[in-house]
């Protein structure tokens, strides 16, 4: 390789930690997060390619390509096989615990190990760069993924979420099940897998993050050996225009459950880029003040038997072309929960958040984020997903520590609009 890696150290006084961001000449971005006292090391190699990428145009394409739903996930399964065997069989020789996952906007391959770190890393870098698909191996996976889809059909938390996304989004592919359907995956061929692989598994579109007991020089030497330089190319995700409105305010499904489940979401208009770390931090503090166990809303829902502590939660569900605040849980009366949340949002809009409540919410969000840095797996997964969204971990933590009460409240100008809310309910079969 003609050029050297460019290395930048990123450190946080608050966390008392640091990591390195490396631009490798192959095109790959690499993040190395040393945890010298750890026994284990967690490595994750991912591509910015997920279930929402079912229509795209890459450098050199005459026109946009549309591919079957579920193909990114199918590709994830199939990449484990190569001409000379299966990646799990190779990891069996190092003792690493390996896995992979596909989300809405990324596909990641990972392992965790305490011995043979560099041997395991070599396997990871090798198999992800070595696609091998045949009619026969692609066919074999239909039964396995078919059962994965059937398992999710029986998972009420999964159903209630996708039903909500279908009520919020008219066209955005975030509403489509990550694994696709039995019908859509039947259309997947080796040629289609190769074509998606070449488009998205370009090192310029990928990142590697390793947290744990590592020597950065040794990792980089191995990267120099293993990474096959990719031609610089880019790919554009193509989404049909998404109207600002929601599709419908209420959706219900009956399933074999004992307690009804709900997800109640507020859709937001989305700008071209992703939300900034500051906006994320402010939203997290706002939601903490609004709906944590210390909030008046939580107390009133609990006292009236409308939620339980084991299941009630909230999240800021945000990605390329979509953003919503979602409250979820189990409830005997989900509509009453939604009504209570809407009214409380109205009250906070009028009255604001008290100084004490703001400080407590900020402390809680800050503490939780620092505590999460105990775990190499959490760090590696967070750093890579932040990188794909153009964000950085310590800037987010600083944004929480430095958040200002007025800015937090001003998030309500664009968030939690009751006119753009919808509820999804999964209720027991009668």
């Amino acid at each position, binding site marked *: 390789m003609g050029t050297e890696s460019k290395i930048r150290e990123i450190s946080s006084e608050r966390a008392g930690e640091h990591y390195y961001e490396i631009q490798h000449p192959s095109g790959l971005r690499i993040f190395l997060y040393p945890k010298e006292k750890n*026994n284990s090391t967690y490595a994750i190699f991912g591509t910015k390619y997920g279930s929402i990428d079912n229509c795209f145009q890459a450098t050199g394409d005459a026109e946009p390509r549309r591919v079957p739903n579920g193909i990114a996930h199918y590709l994830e399964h199939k990449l484990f096989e190569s001409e000379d065997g299966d990646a799990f069989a190779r990891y069996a020789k190092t003792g690493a615990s390996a896995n992979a996952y596909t989300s809405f906007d990324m596909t990641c391959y990972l392992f965790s190990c305490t011995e043979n770190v560099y041997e395991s890393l070599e396997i990871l870098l090798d198999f992800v760069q070595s696609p091998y698909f045949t009619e026969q191996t692609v066919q074999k996976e239909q039964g396995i993924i078919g059962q994965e889809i059937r398992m999710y059909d029986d998972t009420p938390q999964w159903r209630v979420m996708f039903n909500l996304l279908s009520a919020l989004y008219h066209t955005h592919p975030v509403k489509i099940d990550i694994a696709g359907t039995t019908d859509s995956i039947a259309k997947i061929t080796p040629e289609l897998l190769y074509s998606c692989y070449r488009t998205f598994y370009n090192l310029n579109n990928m990142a590697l993050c390793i947290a744990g007991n590592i020597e950065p020089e040794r990792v980089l030497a191995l990267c120099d050996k293993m990474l096959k330089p990719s031609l610089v190319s880019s790919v554009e995700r193509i989404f049909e225009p998404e109207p600002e409105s929601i599709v419908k305010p209420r959706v219900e499904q009956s399933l074999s459950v004992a307690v009804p489940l709900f997800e109640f979401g507020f859709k937001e208009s989305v700008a071209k880029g992703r939300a900034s770390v500051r906006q994320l931090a402010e939203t997290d503090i706002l939601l903490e003040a609004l709906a944590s166990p210390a909030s008046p809303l939580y107390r009133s829902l609990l006292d009236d038997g409308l939620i339980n502590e084991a299941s009630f939660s909230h999240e800021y569900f945000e990605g390329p072309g979509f953003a919503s605040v979602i409250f979820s849980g189990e409830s005997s009366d989900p509509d009453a929960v939604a009504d209570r949340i809407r009214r409380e949002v109205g009250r906070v809009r009028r009255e604001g958040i008290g100084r004490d409540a703001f400080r407590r919410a900020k402390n809680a969000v800050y*503490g939780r984020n620092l505590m999460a840095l105990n775990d190499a797996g959490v760090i590696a997964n967070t750093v890579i997903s932040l990188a794909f969204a153009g964000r950085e971990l310590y800037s987010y933590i600083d944004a929480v520590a430095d958040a200002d009460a007025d800015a937090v409240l001003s998030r309500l100008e664009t968030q939690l609009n009751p006119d753009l809310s919808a509820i999804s309910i999964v209720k027991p079969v009668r």
Partner: protein
Amino acid sequence: MITEVDRRSVCDGVGFRSIRESRFKTVRISVHFFRPLEQETVSANAILPFLLTRASKKYPDYTKLNEHLAELYGAELDADVQKMGDRQVLSVSITGLADRYALNGEKISGELSRLLCSMLFEPPLQDGMFPEDGFEQEKRQMIETLEAEFNDKKLYALRRCEEIMFSDEPYGVGRYGTQEQIRALKRDGLTKVWQQLIHSSKVEILVLGDCDPEPVFCDFSAAFANLGRSGAEECPNFVKKTAAQVNDCTDKEDVAQSKLVMGFRAGCAEPEKSVPAMKLMSALYGGTPNSKLFLNVREKMSLCYYCGSAYNPTKGILTVQSGVESENLERAKEEILHQLDDVRAGSFTDDDLQAAKLSLCNSYHTISDSLDGLEGWYLSKTFSDQGRTPEKEAEMVSAVTKEELIAAAQNVTLDTVYRLTGNEEKE
């Protein structure tokens, strides 16, 4: 690096173990009470950790308590009930940020210790009873937790299999008891159950993470000294070595995918010498993506997405779980048994054996990297070799021979086959 645990005793029947480790950004203090698992007392015991963590004399109000926890950088007060063999383990714990990371120099860990101590020993009793509103809330939430288990069909099928397999053993009692038992709970008897819990249970306190254990030891020593305890009640654990006959049960529910759970008597349990061999046998048979079950039932036959085994060394049982189409249930069951026969016959390579060892050792060596891992490990060692580190366990597993693994597999007997099947017609 090897993480050693410091062990001592607060008083008779109350153990105290600590690991001080500055690489963690957190402090975790947990107190575990052990009771015999019994139909008559299970629900009254089970509600206590939840009642005790929702209010205290100093913080009688749920919101005020949670405000205080948020102020303490999102500290978490948790209640948990689990089974460890025929014992019911009732746990309360608190987790928080280490002092050095507080934004304004607050002292967090001292308050975590005092708070947890006061939650356990100073409940906000009214007329000698736990307050009515909290009691009703916790009853409702326990019932909803049990109901929610039905929502998770994998978990539900496992629970049903255990219910059938242990119908005439203490282990067959659910960790919370039944919904009917919870509904029937009365507030007036609970204060006595709480007193029994703190006075006569075996107790284990674990203090882990970036904090000096001394002040915690002092807080809890003082609290337990006030009780004037005299020892702890015994908690026996029964292990059935061999299945006499095979139970067979099928339930029908409105589900897309059928679940298969097979329960085996493993033939050995802690503290027997053959336990490491059995752990290795389960790893090789169905514990990893390189195991016999994964490679055959999933990869070769494409019958399922998941098929794996788990060994419970306290109770001496092995369970295998899978999710398949109804019409494939018997094929999957046959193959699961066939693969077990292969292991018994020694039909695996030295590489397979080595891979199972590496995989288990990897798990053991990873335990010290998280407080949850350390807590789970040392808690599980309460009744066996308390000082055994995960690293020592890894050595023991590494020393197992092929013959010992085969011998372990030969002692496994099928006890119960449970199926949860969907409607026959496809969507």
